């Protein structure tokens, strides 16, 4: 097993979960209805908890403690996709992002239940169960709002068009792609992407939305290599504001 390759895989997944979990938690107190405040908070808790578990695996492979890894790195040391760091925007954007991201994550962790890296396969089985609720939530809302009023359909379509190139960035290939595939750690981003597209199409087909032609889009990549939009560093500054007062203190 190529440890570097496994670490890279774990880092990008953990960072994705942490950053989107953080964004989801920003809806607390601001949701379009109380039930959505509560739902986004539940998903936030799951995601932040999942990131913690993934950082813990990294810690067991020799990386620093989860708190240190999460709360003291700068943006260029983060490997999350740019999709998750974008601001929440209006509810339509948050919902579309949640749908596109969680459809991919549910499939990713389903694939990882077969991973030859035993600790990850075990964790993936647990996370997969949580993600089932996230995709159920996303699908219900996409189907409802994607076929309701002219305004809701228009808003979702606009956000779908905006988010799609960033969503394609989720599948940015790693330099270790062939290592991961041949060692059976992970079946690879290309396979995940084609499964994802199939599932996304299946849901969008049940609405009045139109899926942009992915072949004409340029994926927004770079996130996996530490290249980010201007939105990530301020998020991290906020997240670590208290922690950095004294990183050695017990809070």
């Amino acid at each position, binding site marked *: 097993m190529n440890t570097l390759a496994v670490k890279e895989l774990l880092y990008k997944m953990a960072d994705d979960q942490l950053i989107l979990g*953080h964004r989801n*938690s*920003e809806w*607390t*107190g*601001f*949701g*379009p*209805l*109380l*039930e*959505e*405040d*509560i739902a986004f*908070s*539940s998903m*936030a*808790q799951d995601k*932040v*908890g999942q990131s*913690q578990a993934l950082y813990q695996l990294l810690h067991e492979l020799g990386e620093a403690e*989860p*708190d240190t890894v*999460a*709360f003291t790195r700068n943006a260029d040391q983060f490997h999350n996709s740019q999709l998750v760091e974008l601001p929440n925007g*209006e*509810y339509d954007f948050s919902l579309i992002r949640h749908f596109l991201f969680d459809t991919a994550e549910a499939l990713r962790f389903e694939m990882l239940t077969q991973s030859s890296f035993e600790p990850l396969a075990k964790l993936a089985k647990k996370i997969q169960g949580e993600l089932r609720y996230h995709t159920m939530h996303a699908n219900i809302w996409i189907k*409802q*709002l994607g*076929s*309701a*009023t002219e*305004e*809701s359909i228009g*808003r979702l379509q606009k956000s779908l068009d905006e988010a799609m190139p960033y969503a394609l960035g989720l599948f940015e290939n790693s330099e270790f792609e062939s290592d991961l595939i041949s060692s059976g750690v992970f079946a690879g981003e290309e396979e995940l992407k084609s499964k994802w597209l199939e599932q996304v199409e299946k849901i969008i087909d049940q609405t009045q939305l139109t899926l942009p032609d992915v072949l004409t889009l340029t994926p927004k990549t770079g996130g996996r290599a530490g290249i980010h939009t201007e939105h990530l560093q301020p998020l991290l500054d*906020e*997240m670590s*504001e*208290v*922690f950095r*007062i*004294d990183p050695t*203190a*017990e*809070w």
Partner: protein
Amino acid sequence: MYGGGNTFEPMKATGIENEDPVLLAEFEARIERGEKIEPHDWMPQLYRKQLIRMIEQHAHSEIIGALPEGTWITRAPGFKRKLALMAKVQDEVGHAQLLYSAAETLGKPREQMLDDLVTGKSKYSNIFNYPAFTWADSCFISWLVDAGAIVNQLANARGSYGPYCRALERICAEESFHLKYGHHCVIHLATGTEKQREMMQAAINRWWPPMMHFFGPPDKASVHSEILMRWKVKMSSNDDQRNQFLDMYVPKIWELGFTIPDENLKKNTVTGKWEYTEPDWAEFKRVINGDGPCNAERLAVRRTAEERGRWVRKALLTPKTEYVTPLA
């Protein structure tokens, strides 16, 4: 979380004289026997009105109360605190949902209650009109404001209206976890670095006056509420609740080595009651009537959330497909 000091409808004209005396006597006898009143039971108009007002204020306090602490979710130091605070504030929003449902059983729709909140027609707990400047402020709220809320809510859970009592029982069980979480945070600041201790002491100094206001004006200055006590709408007096809170928590604050900014604060060993400097009740009145440090900000945030979410709620009301409930 929620405190006492509910503002009830002015009681000059109760309208009780217009109620059917037989039904009224039966209603009062049921309450006297400790029975719960349920949504479809007969009840005097005044009872319905005061309960809507009280439960609605409580629900509003939960969602407005989520704001000062909510701003610390994204800044909570470390995984343990971040996860716990998210769950804690989520609980508060869940309490609002539960309470709006309880109030709806009395005939006022949730959307209308939320409208009355953002237009300033209905009140919410005064304490949330103060800012949470530091992490330690959020710890104060989680521990002590929630502790105060438990004192109030445990009393109200013994009230006469069934749906409200049942909601409160569930709420109190969750609040007791919040209190443990808050206490745990405060203990860490108390036993941490010099800077952490200073942060916590400053938070106590800042929050003590609003905390004393939390239970409402002294009994001698309160609106006459005999009938609300008899109907088990109001379950204990403001001063009694304040005294109970001081009795339970002042020793715990002192135990952690903090001071409380009131040199007259002490327990009278003869009466068993706490003595303290009366907080500034003119300030309380001013803040509750809209002129506090954060009133405008809190309502503006809520108003924005309502406006930004309107299209979503509208889309939920207009599904393209009509579902017909099967008859069997």
